[in-house]
């Protein structure tokens, strides 16, 4: 038996691949031998991701996953899949008393609905092989801990992790595994923009992590690769924290 942690011969859809964790996942999965379908909204940045991928035969499918017509159209064009890494997501920081009516709708469309509708369409169109593996990038926020101002974000991420567990149970008879990773603070463009609302010194913040650094997209990608690979073939409905020990203290 070969190395079960490799992804050779597998076709994997990576959403949110135009930046951040999604881009890191695409790059690392290609190194492990996977053939990729990369999705995002920004064609130009997806082309940059494509250029970073090792190996041949990768394809780009740009689509806005918050729009159900776009999801349905994209799924029609997908090849048969052995794995999905769903990373599309946005952050939001704000105080409860200043929430606006549309804030929940906007955030949950990207962070929750996209995951639910993508899964629904993949299953309905029988695009997921038996066996296959779906991995959602959720968060420690709302599931393992919260910080001030994260109420809406935490609500979307715990909804996502809740959906993943239920999907794991419902899809197990079809040989489809569903798992989540729960990253802590990862150095991405998203983090850089969220940093504008941080009122703590960045070096002070780093001290909150027992492993003394923020995460890199590759740290999350490696956990996702495990969950996509045959090495985790008896793992479903689990939540893998990747947070440098942040939630231990």
């Amino acid at each position, binding site marked *: 038996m070969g190395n079960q942690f490799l992804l050779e011969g597998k076709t994997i859809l990576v959403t949110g691949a135009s930046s951040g964790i999604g881009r890191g996942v695409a790059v690392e999965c290609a190194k492990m031998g996977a053939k990729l379908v990369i999705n995002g909204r920004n064609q130009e940045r997806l082309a940059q991701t494509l250029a970073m991928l090792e190996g041949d035969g990768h394809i780009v499918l740009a689509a806005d996953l918050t729009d159900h017509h776009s999801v349905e159209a994209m799924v029609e064009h997908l090849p048969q899949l052995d794995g999905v890494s769903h990373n599309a997501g946005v952050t939001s*920081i*704000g*105080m409860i008393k200043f929430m606006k009516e549309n804030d929940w709708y906007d955030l949950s469309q990207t962070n929750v609905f996209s995951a639910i509708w993508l899964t629904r369409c993949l299953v309905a169109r029988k695009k997921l092989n038996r066996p296959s593996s779906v991995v959602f990038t959720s968060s420690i926020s709302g599931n393992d801990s919260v910080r001030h101002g994260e109420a809406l974000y935490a609500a979307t991420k715990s909804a996502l992790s809740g959906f993943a567990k239920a999907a794991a149970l419902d899809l197990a008879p079809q040989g489809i595994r569903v798992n989540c990773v729960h990253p802590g603070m990862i150095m991405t463009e998203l983090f850089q923009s969220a940093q504008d609302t941080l*009122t*703590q010194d960045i070096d002070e913040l780093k001290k909150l992590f027992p492993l003394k650094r923020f995460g890199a997209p590759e740290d999350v990608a490696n956990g996702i690769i495990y969950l996509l690979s045959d090495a985790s073939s008896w793992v479903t409905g689990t939540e893998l924290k990747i947070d440098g020990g942040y939630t231990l203290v």
Partner: protein
Amino acid sequence: MTLDQFVQIFAEQFDETPVDQFTPSTDYKELDEWGSLTALSVITMVDAEMEKRITGSNLLACTTIEDLYNFIQKL
């Protein structure tokens, strides 16, 4: 929004500090209640009430409430 209105709405972001402690010349970072939660409240208040985006580092760079008000007016 006038400076006086800004001072008043700034004060509303604090739960324990008495309102009379807030004047245009208050050095807000010296207040006992100043911290990440009150700072976040001010950032979201400015966004919601004045439709201007300020950052944590902007708050750290200003000293008095009037400094902050003037900074926001220039945005």
